[in-house]
């Protein structure tokens, strides 16, 4: 209990401490911020948090109720396999991106605010993963939006502020749609504690089955906002690119996954059996497929690298959602695998893009000719990650996509069982289409490239090491999928 | 028969007689006599009221000991005595409240004439209240008209004369109709005394003969009295008459004169025709509809008005609409509500007129709203009193207006067909009242900075202030402990039958 709590509240308190202690001085104020102390402190906090989370993951098995909001609404924590999986992702990505940002944020203003909210978001994420019922989950889901919003609008440019607000309002919109469903679930379930096989009362299903389907759909759509599902995906390509690169990495890799986690929880609450074969499933699958295809297509046409990556996130997240929507064990495995794979890959990609921006200031894809010569390590990582995202063995992406396609074919759904894999394949092709050109141009700038002006611009260790770790992790997943298959199998049954 | 039974006759007589005396007295003495007479009559009415309450039954007083059906009779019951007392109180307050304005409004030489008229008015009102004889009632209606007309025109400016002529014409139309109705009634029944007529009317209704002439007669009398009491749409004479006459006149006219006629109508309904017979005719529906229309249109006209006194005058049209709505309900409860409203409206309206004059005084004599800005700061008591009056009109609890509204609404609920209409109109009318009265109240409490007459300061007149306070108190008393009054009205109506 204390491990879980401390893994939640330690980063939150630490974040608040940073926010208050290192408040950005205003013009005219004498106070100056000791940057070294700030970053050191943040680093220590991050490591401690990571350690705490890891310890909690390993040891904490019990569930406990912290307190009651109202008589029947406990704030309840329980770490199950799904939560553990997401925690794993967070605990690897966040510290990496955090260390990356120590270098990256050097020239930004108001660093302390960034770190403060970064830690807050970390804490909230941990809480989200260990939430044991829908209300607790919802609580931290909202808080996640609130704490990650400052990361988006950090630069405070007009564009960033608008993007931050857009992110905020889309997320809230989704959250409220979900809340609508929660109200109804609350009345139709015995408790809001998570389960994997449906918590609806049989009598309720008999009585308002039709309306409950609507509710389920509204909830899926609502949480789908966070996961960038069509039609509420528009915030994602706006918000991710304007954030500082490490923040985009975290957003794309971890925070949007909160939406996925939410949808897994919702599916569990309603029960796959209740939803399978209904119109909800069909519509939902169609939406995910539309998103998969559309995201790739938009990414393909996008010239700005970070934006391209953001669109790619839209598309890839819907792979995961597709896997969930199929409601079949293999596909579920694929989806969860993809959660991890995509998390590592996308954070790595964003960090690479960040490193490029940091060193060269180039943001558009066509400017990146020869970049592979300038920053070889970074670009190699970028290449490997890209291959992973396309789904070339032996990277993580391959495994997950394999399972996704297999699950879909096995599911025996009409139309979608074949259509799904086809679209996934097309999208994979598009992925190759939008990720490989920077790589190719980066390493093979063409005959007219002026090698004379070439400088080594490899960033410092603080940047390269996190990128390297993340890339390795993505490959690791692909090489040894067995190490997570146990946990995924447990996740499917809700243990 | 106790000595007290002479009081009604005495009060009519001394007010009539003192009017004559006033004509030879100097202005000051006339004023004193006038006040004294009003006070004395009030005192007598009060004693009479107590007496009647203690005995619990009304009495009939033969004039010159001619027995019915030949003689002329005076009848006194609780309601009559209460009404007389109330009229005296209001009249006293109105006279006292407007006294300081009199020299400015009326030529010095006409002052004694003024008091004659007031005394005459009082006597005619008393006679209207007490008489048991229809023709006497007619005569005093005319006396009332003449003296009221005199009161209007005593302020010799073009407006008032024109208003007086208009008032006169409408009144004459009304009294002509009344007289004609009366004659037909006499023709049908052969009697002039109310109680005798009633017996005959009951016979006629029982026989089924001559019903149409009877109803025509009743209708003629009703229309006549409606015109005289300015029921919408016969109200055209009213704003000018009330708006431009002297303060006291306006207060008296609006609160008493029309009420005298209404009281006569009540007597006719109860004592001449019989309540049930009256209710069985369609006349009450007509009264009801016109009452409702009066409530709305009177208020609408008041909202449009830009002159504070005319606004208050138009408000009277609306309030008279309330009273007729109560008649139109055709129930005992409606009648009680109407009679209570007569009292409450009289108390409030005189208060408003007197307070309004206090406000216009400190605004350079102008009655335009724009000039009244901030007037309540210049004359605090008048401001407070006007506010109190307005609140009563709007029907805020604690003030008499609320009780009458309450009674009206309660009465309305009991009448199946008319319930919704009356309730809704009551609501709308309250809103409209709120609009124009609150507009004024806020206006007089608005900042003085941009007011044109900010430099005028009010010379404090003790008498005036006391009158205001008394009027407000009267209002509040009616509003707070209305139960005895309502009981008394009920008792009085019971005695009528």
């Amino acid at each position, binding site marked *: 209990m204390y491990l879980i709590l401390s893994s939640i509240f330690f980063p939150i308190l630490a974040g608040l401490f940073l926010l208050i202690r290192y408040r950005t001085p*205003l013009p005219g104020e004498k106070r100056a911020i000791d940057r070294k102390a700030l970053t050191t402190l943040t680093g220590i906090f991050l490591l401690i948090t990571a350690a705490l989370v890891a310890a909690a993951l390993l040891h904490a098995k019990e569930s406990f109720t912290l307190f009651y909001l109202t*008589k029947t609404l406990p704030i309840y924590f329980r770490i199950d396999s799904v939560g553990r999986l997401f925690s794993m992702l967070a605990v690897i990505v966040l510290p990496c991106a955090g260390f990356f940002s120590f270098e990256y944020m050097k020239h930004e203003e108001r660093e302390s605010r960034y770190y403060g909210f970064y830690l807050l978001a970390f804490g909230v994420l941990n809480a989200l993963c260990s939430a044991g019922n829908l209300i607790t989950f919802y609580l931290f889901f909202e808080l996640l939006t609130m704490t990650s919003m400052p990361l988006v609008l950090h630069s405070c440019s007009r564009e960033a*502020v608008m993007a931050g607000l857009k992110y905020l309002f889309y997320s809230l919109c989704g959250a409220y749609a979900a809340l609508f469903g929660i109200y109804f679930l609350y009345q139709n379930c015995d408790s809001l504690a998570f389960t994997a096989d449906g918590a609806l009362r049989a009598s309720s299903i008999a009585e308002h089955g039709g309306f409950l389907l609507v509710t389920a759909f509204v909830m899926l759509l609502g949480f789908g906002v966070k996961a960038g599902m069509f039609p509420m995906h528009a915030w994602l390509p706006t918000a991710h690119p304007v954030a500082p690169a490490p923040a985009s990495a975290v957003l794309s890799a971890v925070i949007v996954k909160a939406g996925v986690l939410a949808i897994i929880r919702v599916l569990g609450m309603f029960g796959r059996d209740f939803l399978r074969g209904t119109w909800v499933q069909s519509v939902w699958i169609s939406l995910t497929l539309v998103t998969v295809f559309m995201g790739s297509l938009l990414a393909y046409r996008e010239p700005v690298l970070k934006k391209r990556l953001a669109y790619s996130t839209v598309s890839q997240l819907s792979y995961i959602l597709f896997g969930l929507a199929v409601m079949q064990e293999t596909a579920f495995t694929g989806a969860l695998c993809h959660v991890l794979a995509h998390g590592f890959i996308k954070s790595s990609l964003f960090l690479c893009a960040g490193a490029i921006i940091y060193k060269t200031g180039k943001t558009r894809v066509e400017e990146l000719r020869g970049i592979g010569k300038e920053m070889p390590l970074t670009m190699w990582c970028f290449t490997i990650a890209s291959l992973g995202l396309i789904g070339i063995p032996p990277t993580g992406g391959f495994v997950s996509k394999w399972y996704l396609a297999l699950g879909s074919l096995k599911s025996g759904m009409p139309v979608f069982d074949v259509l799904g894999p086809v679209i996934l394949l097309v999208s994979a092709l598009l992925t190759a289409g939008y990720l490989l050109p920077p790589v190719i141009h980066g390493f093979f700038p063409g005959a007219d490239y002026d090698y004379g002006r070439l400088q080594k611009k490899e960033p410092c260790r603080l940047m390269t090491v996190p990128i390297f770790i993340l890339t390795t992790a993505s490959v690791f997943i692909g090489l040894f999928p067995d190490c997570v298959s146990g946990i995924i199998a447990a996740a499917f049954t809700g243990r | 028969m106790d000595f007290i039974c002479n009081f009604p006759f005495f009060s009519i007589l001394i007010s009539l007689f003192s009017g004559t005396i006033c004509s030879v007295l100097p202005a000051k003495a006339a004023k004193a006599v006038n006040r004294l007479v009003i006070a004395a009559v009030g005192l007598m009415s009060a004693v009479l009221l107590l007496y009647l309450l203690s005995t619990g039954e009304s009495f009939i007083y033969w004039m010159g000991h001619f027995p019915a059906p030949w003689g002329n009779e005076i009848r006194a019951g609780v309601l009559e005595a209460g009404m007389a007392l109330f009229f005296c109180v209001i009249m006293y307050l109105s006279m006292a409240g407007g006294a300081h304005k009199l020299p400015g409004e009326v030529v010095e030489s006409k002052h004694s004439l003024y008091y004659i008229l007031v005394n005459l008015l009082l006597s005619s009102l008393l006679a209207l209240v007490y008489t048991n004889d229809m023709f006497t009632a007619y005569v005093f209606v005319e006396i009332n008209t003449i003296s009221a007309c005199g009161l209007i025109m005593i302020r010799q400016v073009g407006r008032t004369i024109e208003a007086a002529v208009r008032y006169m014409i409408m009144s004459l139309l009304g009294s002509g109709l009344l007289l004609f109705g009366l004659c037909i009634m006499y023709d049908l029944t052969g009697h002039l005394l109310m109680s005798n007529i009633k017996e005959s009317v009951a016979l006629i209704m029982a026989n089924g003969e001559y019903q149409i002439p009877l109803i025509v007669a009743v209708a003629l009398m009703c229309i006549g009295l409606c015109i005289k009491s300015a029921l919408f749409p016969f109200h055209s004479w009213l704003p000018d008459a009330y708006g431009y006459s002297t303060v006291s006149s306006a207060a008296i006219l609006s609160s008493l004169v029309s009420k005298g006629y209404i009281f006569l109508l009540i007597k006719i309904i109860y004592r001449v025709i019989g309540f049930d017979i009256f209710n069985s005719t369609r006349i009450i529906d007509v009264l009801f509809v016109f009452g409702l229309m009066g409530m709305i249109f009177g208020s609408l006209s008041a909202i449009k008005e830009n002159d504070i006194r005319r606004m208050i005058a138009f408000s009277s049209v609306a309030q008279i609409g309330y009273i007729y709505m109560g008649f139109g309900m055709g129930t005992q409860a409606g009648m009680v509500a109407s009679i209570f409203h007569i009292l409450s409206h009289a108390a409030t309206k005189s208060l408003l007129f007197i307070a309004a004059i206090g406000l216009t005084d400190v605004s350079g004599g102008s009655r335009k709203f724009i000039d009244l800005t901030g007037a309540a700061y210049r004359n605090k008591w008048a401001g407070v009193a006007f506010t109190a009056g307005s609140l009563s009109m709007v029907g*805020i609890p604690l003030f008499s207006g609320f009780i009458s509204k309450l009674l009206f*609404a309660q009465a309305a609920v009991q009448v199946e067909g008319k319930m*919704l209409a009356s309730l809704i109109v009551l609501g709308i009318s309250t809103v409209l009242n*709120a*609009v124009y009265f609150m507009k004024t109240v806020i206006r007089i409490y608005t900042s003085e900075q941009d007011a044109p007459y900010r430099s005028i300061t009010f010379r404090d007149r003790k008498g005036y202030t006391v009158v205001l306070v008394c009027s407000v108190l009267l209002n509040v008393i009616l509003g707070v402990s209305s139960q005895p009054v309502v009981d008394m009205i009920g008792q009085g109506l019971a005695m009528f039958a």
Partner: protein
Amino acid sequence: MIVSVILIPFITGILVPVIPFRKRWQKEVFLETAVVLNSILVWYLLLHHSDSTFLLAHFTGNLNISFRVDGMSMVFAGLVSALWPFATLYAFEYMTKEENENVFFLFYTLTYGVTLGIALAANLLTMYFFYELLTLVTVPLVMHTLTREAVLASRKYLYYSLGGAAFAFLGLIMVIVYGSTTDFILGGVLDPAKTAGKNNVLLLIYVMAFLGFGVKAAVCPFNSWLPQAGVAPTPVTALLHAVAVVKSGAFAIIRLTYYSFGTDFLQGTWAQDVVMAVVMFTIVYGCSRAVKETHLKRRLAYSTISNLSYILFGAVIMTPLGLVGALTHLVFHAIMKISSFFCAGAVMHQTDRHYVHELNGLGYKMPRVFGIFTISALALMGVPGLAGFISKWNLAGAAVESGNPLAWGGIACLLVSALLTAVYMLTIVVRAFFPGKDFDYSTVSDIRDPNWKMLLPLFVFTVCIVLFGVYSQPIVDFFMSVAAGAV
């Protein structure tokens, strides 16, 4: 005893202009002491209440002015008396910049008494009486500045309120005539024997009375007075137009619905559908107007409009749970809104800025005020862990439980409104804390947080918001027992 808590503010208020205070602080001490004492008295009264009715005066017939402490009055009186001392404290500081203090405090304190009168009224007539009185004593407060704008606003306020009362009056009449008594009894007092065959008329009048009382609770289309009345000094807008006055409207509607007409009579009728539709529309309408509004206080006023209808939404669900939801929001919204209004007032007092776009970057200079504002904004949005969530949860729970499809639609309205709340509140927060890259900090250089008299109430309210957010069990339990008629 009951009367004394109403009278003490009256006497205190009247004494303020009468006693010649030499120093300002003497007056402050005097007022604050009186208000605090009265509040303590109220709480004592509420905690040691007896069931007996205190008869003050006979009106006509069977109509009395009488007082009684029951569950509802405990909620409302407790709320009002808890907030008033803080608001008074805040007003001291705020009013240093305004003129005519004495008159202000006179009516301000009178309002306290009148509001308690509404809360403690034992029957509909008494409540109606104090309800009208409330309009009258608050008008001078709205008019306080005596500018043209203030006069227009107060005029409008008067028209609306008195007009509304006129129609509420019809409801009163119905209860007098068709009820067995006018006293408040949970479940209603209508006498089935008398009402037989008159249901539709009664329902029509109920709708009218609802809208009539709804004027004070700013139900659409009778809401436009509230934003305009924002010209009043902030303590007034905060306390009266976020708590006392408007809540009196909501309180009156609850009394009318649950204690006079009775839910059994109303539930499932067309009248319920009508009022619920009106309320739902108001919820969304108020929020949308708030989003459009750029004047800070008016924006909050529109937010109040929408939130009041939350309360009414709970009330018109017409189940005990609905009442619980309504009561929860009644209390919690009061705290949240007074907190945000006080923040707005602090900003206006310290910087003289009134419009949202002028608030850029103030968060750095007034971190406490804007920190508190953020919390109240989040609470108003209904973020879990803060008070607003609990009340919305209760409301929505009641709506779901009622099984009324229209109420289900109402939940959607609540959520849309929550989203809009986020839009109009968080844009302010974002402006204050993230003013944009090219923001010129010198424009805010001489601005600072207000002194403790303003901050103390804010802190207390914030603590309450959080406290009720995480630990609302006892108070919700209490509301449950109120709704069940057990108190």
